[in-house]
Structure formats: structure tokens, C-alpha cells
């Protein structure tokens, strides 16, 4: 028997290291025909902002080599709607439900975090300070150490459960940003959010996305994500949650070897809606094959 439990700290204990990434798994409900959510460590719901947002105009996605761009732009009905309407529907899922909290102003983040602090069945928020798809998507906070310190420490003051901070890869020095988040009180960091990219229709001489640029995700970003997870895991003491292009159990193991304590699956859910549960099984199989008693032994086990 392999022990698959991962304790990310401050009450966030995962049944196994596999979570689903925000914006790619809806509210979990969309996937229950394919995945028994009890087989997952957690699900992270769609990016939610204090106030409702209509998101960007269509078209919002473009396929790219081994990946895709999106510019959804944080379409959501706001934190209050989440609390009133969505939370009651999903709170009894037999897995950890995390809210991905996005924002544009410091006040929005703080207000939002405060509002969900008391939700009994919501053990953590993933603070999204890295959305590249809206002008005020928080990426301004996510790309400087001062920005991230500020938003994390303010949210920390009002939010008393597990505070995971999601980092942007669109930076010169990701370790520095992660250290700032840690110093400001983050319980864990998750990375990467999408890389900012662009696609052009040469025939029409127009951008393929309504707002010109978007976030790149999928298998193509894996090498960059893995490098950043490795850099951050070496730098910080808090747990690191790795994501970016994970498509199968081998990919997931690679992220854990690089130093991730848990992982998230994003775009791959679109290609195989049952992939998340398969990855969880596959990690256990890997441990069995190599004689690891606990998935914890994989964390940072890369021999350099």
C-alpha cells in the first residue's frame, strides 16, 4: 500500500497529490460523469472575482502547437453568487474544494477572501495574482515582489485558512516572487499560470483572440513550468504545487521530483475528461513500481 496523503499545511490535507486547475474543470460538476471526485486530492474552481465579470468577447481561444491560448478574461458571477448559489451545490463533494480568487484591486482581493473565510467546507483559496487575460487581472501584483508582498500580506490578515498563492511565469525571477509570497504569509505557492502569448490568422491578418493576447497552456509549456517549479522549490520552505502541461502520471511524477508537493491538471482535462483520476492512479503505480511507500518520497527526489 502506498500512502498518497499530502498535507499542505494549515488544514489543507489532500487524499492524493492530484488537483484540477482553475478554469479548466468548471465547478467540478461538469466532470462528474467522467471522474469520481473522491479520487482527487482537490478541485480548484473557476477564477472568481469580487464583482461579476462578463469576461472578454469571443473568440477566446486558439489552438497552438501542443497547446492552446485562452483569453476568457475571468468570466464569473462574483464571490457573492459563488457563496449563495455554487458553494451549496458543491460543498459536499468528497474532495477538497478550493476557490481561485482573482481580482483587480487590493480591496477586491481582501474583501473576497474575507467573504469566503467562514465557508466551512472551503479549506483554502488559491490567490490568482497572475491572470494575463484582463487588464486588471492581478498580474500587476504577480510580477513584482512588492506587489505580491502587498496583496498576500493584506489577504493574510483576513483569511485564516490555507492561503495558496498562484504565481505568474511571466517574470524574470520566479524564485524571488515566490520568496516574497512566502515572507508575506502564503501557506503554499502554485505555479505556473499561463504564459502570455499571441496567435495571428495570416489569411485574415487579424489576431485570433478578441483581445489580441492570451494565456498559453498545455503540453508545450511543461518544460518552462518544470524549470520554474524546480527553481521555486529550491528557494522556498512552504509546499509548492506544480502545474503546467501535465498530461499523464509521468508528467506529474516529474513535477514532484522537481520539488512539487502536489500538482494540478489543467488543459489536459479538455483532451481526456477522465485524465485527473488516471493520473492519481498512475502516481501510485509509479510508487509501487519503484518501491516508494509514500508519495512524499517523490517530492524533490531528483538526483542532480
Amino acid at each position: 500500500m502506498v500512502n498518497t496523503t499530502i498535507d499542505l499545511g494549515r488544514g489543507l490535507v489532500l487524499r492524493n497529490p492530484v488537483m484540477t486547475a482553475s478554469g479548466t474543470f468548471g465547478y467540478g460538476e461538469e466532470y462528474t460523469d467522467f471522474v469520481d471526485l473522491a479520487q482527487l486530492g482537490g478541485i480548484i474552481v473557476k477564477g472568481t472575482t469580487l464583482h461579476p465579470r462578463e469576461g472578454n468577447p469571443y473568440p477566446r481561444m486558439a489552438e497552438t502547437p501542443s497547446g492552446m491560448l485562452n483569453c476568457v478574461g475571468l468570466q464569473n458571477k462574483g464571490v457573492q453568487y459563488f457563496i449563495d448559489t455554487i458553494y451549496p451545490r458543491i460543498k459536499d463533494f468528497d474532495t477538497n474544494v478550493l476557490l481561485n480568487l482573482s481580482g483587480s484591486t487590493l480591496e477586491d482581493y481582501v474583501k473576497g477572501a474575507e467573504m469566503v473565510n467562514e465557508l466551512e467546507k472551503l479549506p483554502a483559496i488559491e490567490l490568482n495574482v497572475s491572470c494575463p487575460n484582463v487588464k486588471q487581472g492581478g498580474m500587476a501584483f504577480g510580477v513584482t515582489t512588492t506587489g505580491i508582498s502587498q496583496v498576500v500580506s493584506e489577504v493574510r490578515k483576513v483569511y485564516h485558512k490555507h492561503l495558496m498563492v498562484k504565481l505568474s511565469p511571466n517574470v524574470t525571477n520566479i524564485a524571488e516572487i515566490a520568496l516574497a509570497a512566502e515572507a508575506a504569509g502564503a501557506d503554499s505557492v502554485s505555479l505556473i499560470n499561463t504564459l502570455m502569448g499571441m496567435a495571428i490568422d495570416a489569411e485574415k491578418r487579424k489576431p485570433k483572440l478578441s483581445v489580441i493576447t492570451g494565456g498559453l497552456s498545455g503540453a508545450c509549456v511543461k518544460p518552462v513550468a518544470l524549470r520554474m517549479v524546480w527553481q521555486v522549490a529550491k528557494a522556498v520552505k512552504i509546499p509548492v504545487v506544480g502545474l503546467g502541461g501535465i498530461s499523464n502520471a509521468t508528467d506529474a511524477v516529474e513535477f514532484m521530483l522537481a520539488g512539487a508537493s502536489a500538482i494540478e491538471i489543467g488543459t489536459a482535462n479538455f483532451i481526456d475528461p477522465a485524465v485527473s483520476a488516471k493520473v492519481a492512479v498512475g502516481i501510485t503505480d509509479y510508487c509501487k513500481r519503484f518501491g516508494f511507500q509514500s508519495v512524499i518520497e517523490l517530492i524533490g527526489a531528483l538526483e542532480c
Partner: protein
Amino acid sequence: MKQVTDFILVEKRDYGRSVLLRLRAETTLPDIVPGQFVQVRVDGSPNTYLRRPISIHDVDFGNNEITLLVQQVGEGTRHLAAAKEGDIINVVLPLGNGFSFPEKGERCLLVGGGIGIAPLYFFAKVLGKKGIQPVLLLGGKTETDLIRLADYQQLGDAFVTTEDGSLGEKGFVTMHSVWTERQFDKIYVCGPKPMMKAVAKLAAETDAWCEVSLENLMACGLGACLCCVEDTVDGHVCVCKEGPVFNTRRLKW
């Protein structure tokens, strides 16, 4: 209930730019209603990362078979069209909502343009079974675009337009004489957006109720990613989940 299923390609028919793919599952099919679609994984196509949404053209529940009509427009559909009988094709189904059924006695017109005729076949067939004989109006650029015309003609009165006049009346579907000669209560449309908009306008002018099937770019097909949105009176809604069929009154056209 939705499922991911490996189908076997049991029959492929070549219609030039389009192919018909008859797929058989080893397991029982889920419930499927006309207007729903599937997401097909395209194997062996290096530049096709995401699944491809394709309408359900026909269903044979007895044999656990679905049929797709695929037009080659890019690398993904080209690879699908190159599949060989016996190949495994991985499909997520059924997705989206179907057409709403008319009341008995309502006069229905089904308008299809180009590959947009695909979902209308299954719809017309089911309507027939329910005792409703629809009128079909099918348009194409040229004669060869009108795939399976003889089969469509089995399902109701079928009228045709081609832009080059090679078959049926010359021009667009909106220019066909059937519009002046007959009256319809419900109009169902699938085809290129400009065509659907034109038909929707005609429908509105004759006070007919009108449903269209949209083909927005999709990633998940499940209502999870919010990529496929259409602007409606209720804001941005997902075509894959709340559509692909919409009443035109809901759309901000």
C-alpha cells in the same frame, strides 16, 4: 450521462471534401437527442491538440452506432477523413442540448447550409418517427455539396439551392421560392453564420419561431472552460453546454 468511448470505424463513405463515418461502440450508447454533438480525439495529427466538435448526423441505438459527417477544412478534419475502417476513434458524447421538438401539427422547416446539413438528418428522422413531416431546405455552393440528398428526400419534402445553379434553385437558401409558397411555424437552421443570420431575419419577418445551431470554437465541450461563448440576452453563455442550439430571440444578432 456523458462518456468517453472508443468507437470502431465500421464504414466510411467518401463524398469528396466530406466523409461519412459510421462508428460502432462495444458498449451501450447513452441517450442522444437530435442536435447534440460529440468531441472527437484526432489521433496521429501532430498539429491537432484539442478534440474536434462534430454534430451527430445519425444514431442507430440498436447497433450502438453513431454516424458523423465530416468536412475537411483543416488538419484535424483531414486526419479524421483519412481514418480507415477498423480504426479506433475516441469520442466524448453526447454534448450540448438538442433542437426543441415542435408540437404536433406545427409546420417545420429545417434549413441546412454546407456541412450544416449534418445534424438535420437525425433530427428529420426523429421528427418523422414522431409523426411530424418536416420540410427540408438544403443549400450548397454547388451540386456536390449536397451530400446524401436522396436520403434526405426520404425524410420530408426537400428543396435545394446552389450558388452556381448546378442543382435546385440558383442562389442562397433565403432566396428559395419555398419561402413565398409556404408558411412555417418553426424554423431550425444549421450552417454558416451569415446564412443562419439571414434565415433568422426571414423567420422574424414571417413571425416564425427560429432555432439555430452554432459552431463556436471549443476547447472542453463541457461548459467548463468558457471559451465557446456567444453573446446572448443573458450575457455570455457557453455554446457547448447551453447550446449549440439557440432560439434566435436569445441571441444578440
